[in-house]
C-alpha cells in the first residue's frame, strides 16, 4: 500500500531503471525471456539484462519497426520477448507492426517504452511521447500499464512476463517518487486508492501520481478531502474504482503526462458516462508539443504540477451540484 508518511514522498530510482533490474529478475526465472533493443540499451536500461544474459539479448540497431516484428516472430515461436526503446520510437514508429504482427494475431509480445511523457526535458519534443497511451489503447488485446515508481514497475514487469498475451509498459526517464511499500501487489485491471477522500477523486498514473498526492495535501489544508487513485493499469482499466469514485465523490479530476484530449482522461470519462456520470476536469498536455528545458521547468510550463491539479479540483468543485 501507500507509503506510511501520508504526504511526504522520498525520491527513488527512475521507472526505467526499475524496469532494467526487473528484467534481470524475470530473465533468471524464465529462460524463454529474451530482450530486443534498438541501440538505446544504456538508456532503456536493458543493458543490465544484456550483461547477465548476452546470448538472450538481441541488438536490432536503429530500426524499431523491424524490431517489433522480429519480437512478434520470436513470440510466435515460443519466446517471451521484451522489446524496448523510447516510447516515442517503439510505439510510434512500431505502431503498424504492433497492430499487424502482434495485436491482430495476439502474440505474446512485451513492449516497454521508456522516456515517456515530457519529463525527459532537455532532449525536446522529437523524443517526448505524449500520444503513446492513446496509441497503445488502440491495439485490441494488448494490456497497457503505466507504473508510478520502482516498486510498482518491478511488480508490473513480473506480471507482464507471466501474462500470456501482448503487453505494453510505459516507463519514464527521471527519478520517481516512492509511492509504494515493497510487497504491494499489482494486477491487470487493477488500481490503488492511495489516499481516501470524499469531495473529489483524482485519478493519475506515472509521475503524476506523486503530483496528485502533493495536490491532495494542499487541498487538505484548504479543507477539501481528495481521494487519490493510481490507475496503473490503463487497459483494462479499473471500472469499479471509477464507478465508485464517481458515485461517492461526485467530482473527478484526471491528470496525466500525455495529451489531455486522448489519454486516460477520456477512458475514465467513458467509464463514468457508462456508469454514474459526474463533473470532471482534466490535466495534461493541451494540444501542443512541449520544448527543451530541465524536466522541472518543462513540467511546470506545460502545467503538470500539483498546483495545476489543485486548480482543476477547484474548477470541478465549482461545477459540482
Amino acid at each position, binding site marked *: 500500500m501507500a507509503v506510511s508518511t501520508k504526504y511526504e514522498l522520498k525520491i527513488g530510482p527512475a521507472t526505467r531503471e526499475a524496469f532494467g533490474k526487473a528484467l534481470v529478475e524475470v530473465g533468471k526465472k524464465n529462460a524463454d525471456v529474451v530482450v530486443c533493443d534498438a541501440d538505446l540499451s544504456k538508456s532503456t536500461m536493458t543493458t543490465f539484462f544484456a550483461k547477465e544474459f548476452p546470448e538472450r539479448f538481441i541488438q536490432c540497431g536503429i530500426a524499431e*519497426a523491424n524490431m517489433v516484428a522480429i519480437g512478434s516472430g*520470436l513470440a510466435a515461436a*515460443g519466446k517471451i520477448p521484451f522489446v524496448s526503446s523510447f516510447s516515442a520510437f517503439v510505439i510510434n514508429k512500431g505502431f503498424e507492426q504492433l497492430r*499487424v*504482427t502482434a495485436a491482430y494475431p495476439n502474440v505474446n509480445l512485451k513492449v516497454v517504452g521508456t522516456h515517456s511523457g515530457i519529463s525527459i526535458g532537455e532532449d525536446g519534443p522529437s523524443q517526448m511521447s505524449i500520444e503513446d497511451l492513446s496509441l497503445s489503447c488502440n491495439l485490441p488485446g494488448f494490456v497497457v500499464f503505466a507504473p508510478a515508481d520502482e516498486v510498482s514497475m518491478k511488480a508490473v514487469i513480473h506480471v507482464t512476463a507471466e501474462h500470456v498475451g501482448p503487453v505494453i509498459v510505459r516507463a519514464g526517464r527521471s527519478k520517481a517518487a516512492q509511492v509504494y511499500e515493497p510487497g504491494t501487489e499489482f494486477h491487470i485491471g487493477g488500481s490503488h486508492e492511495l489516499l481516501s477522500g470524499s469531495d473529489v477523486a483524482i485519478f493519475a498514473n506515472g509521475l503524476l501520481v506523486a503530483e496528485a498526492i502533493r495536490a491532495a495535501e494542499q487541498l487538505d489544508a484548504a479543507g477539501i478531502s481528495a481521494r487519490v487513485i493510481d490507475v496503473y493499469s490503463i487497459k483494462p482499466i479499473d471500472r469499479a474504482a471509477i464507478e465508485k469514485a464517481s458515485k461517492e465523490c461526485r467530482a473527478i479530476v484526471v491528470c496525466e503526462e500525455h495529451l489531455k484530449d486522448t489519454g486516460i482522461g477520456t477512458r475514465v470519462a467513458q467509464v463514468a458516462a457508462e456508469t454514474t456520470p459526474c463533473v470532471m476536469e482534466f490535466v495534461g498536455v493541451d494540444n501542443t508539443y512541449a520544448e527543451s528545458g530541465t524536466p522541472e521547468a518543462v513540467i511546470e510550463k506545460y502545467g503538470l504540477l500539483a498546483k495545476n491539479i489543485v486548480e482543476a479540483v477547484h474548477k470541478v468543485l465549482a461545477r459540482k451540484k
Partner: protein
Amino acid sequence: MTKTSNPAELAEISKRVRRHIIEMITAAKSGHPGGSLSATEVVVALFFDIMKHDPANPAWKQRDRFILGKGHACPVLYSTMAEAGYTPIDQLNTFRQLGSIYQGHPDVRFIPALEASTGSLGEGLSVGIGMALAAKMDGNPSRTFVMLGDGESQEGQIWEAAMFGAFHKVDNLVCIVDYNKIQLDGFVKDIMPLDPLVDKWKSFGWNVIDIDGHDIAAVQKAFHEAEGFKGKPTVIVANTIKGKGVSFMENNPKWHGTAPSKEECALALKELA
C-alpha cells in the same frame, strides 16, 4: 499428404492449385490472381517437397515454417495448404465470405496452421527472422521460409530485416522474392524499380540465388543449395511471370487484383485442363 520430389508430379499439383486459384477468386468476385499464379511452383515445391511439416500436427515444434509476406496472394497458399490436407478443399470457394476460414488476407485466427497474419506489406520477413532466430537459440532444426513480392520489396522494413538477417547470420531462413515485375499500378520498373535486385541483396550480405521461378527442378535445386549454405541467410530471386498459366492474364497488370468473370474463368480453366 503424399510428398514428392518428382518435378512432373509437382507440376501436376501446381496445375490443380492454379485451377483452385481461378475458381476461388471467381467465386469471391474479388482477389488477386496474378501474383498467386506467379508464385505457384515455389509454394507447391515448398509444401510438397522441401519443407518438413505435418498437416496432421500443425503445432509440431520442429516443423519448417512458411510466411507469405505478400499476403494478397493467399489463394495460392490456401489452395496449396488445402491440397496438402490442412484445410478443406471444398470450402475454397467460400474465399472472402463472412465466416470463411479463407479470409481476404492470411489470418491466423481462422487458420491456426498459418504462421503469421500478413497483408500489410513489408512485415513478414522480420517476423520470419524472429522465428528463425528463436529456432537457432533453441537448437531447433526448424527452418523458416518467407515469400516476398517484388512490389513489397519497396517497403523500407524489408531492408531493415535484410541488414538484421545478415548481421545475425540467420542461415536457417530462406527468403524468396516472387519477381514477377508487376505491381498494382503497373510495371515495377515504372513505379519504383528494384534493379539491380540481385546486387542489392548481395550487398546486404545475403547468399543470392537467381532462378526461373517456374522451373520446378531449378526451384528444388535452389532450396537444396540454400540448406547447405551456412553463415548467411539465402534469398532466392525467383523470376516469374505474373498471371502464369493463363494466357490472357500473363504479364498484364490488370490481373493483379481483378477477379475473372464466369466466362473468363471457363477460358482459364480450359487452359489449365
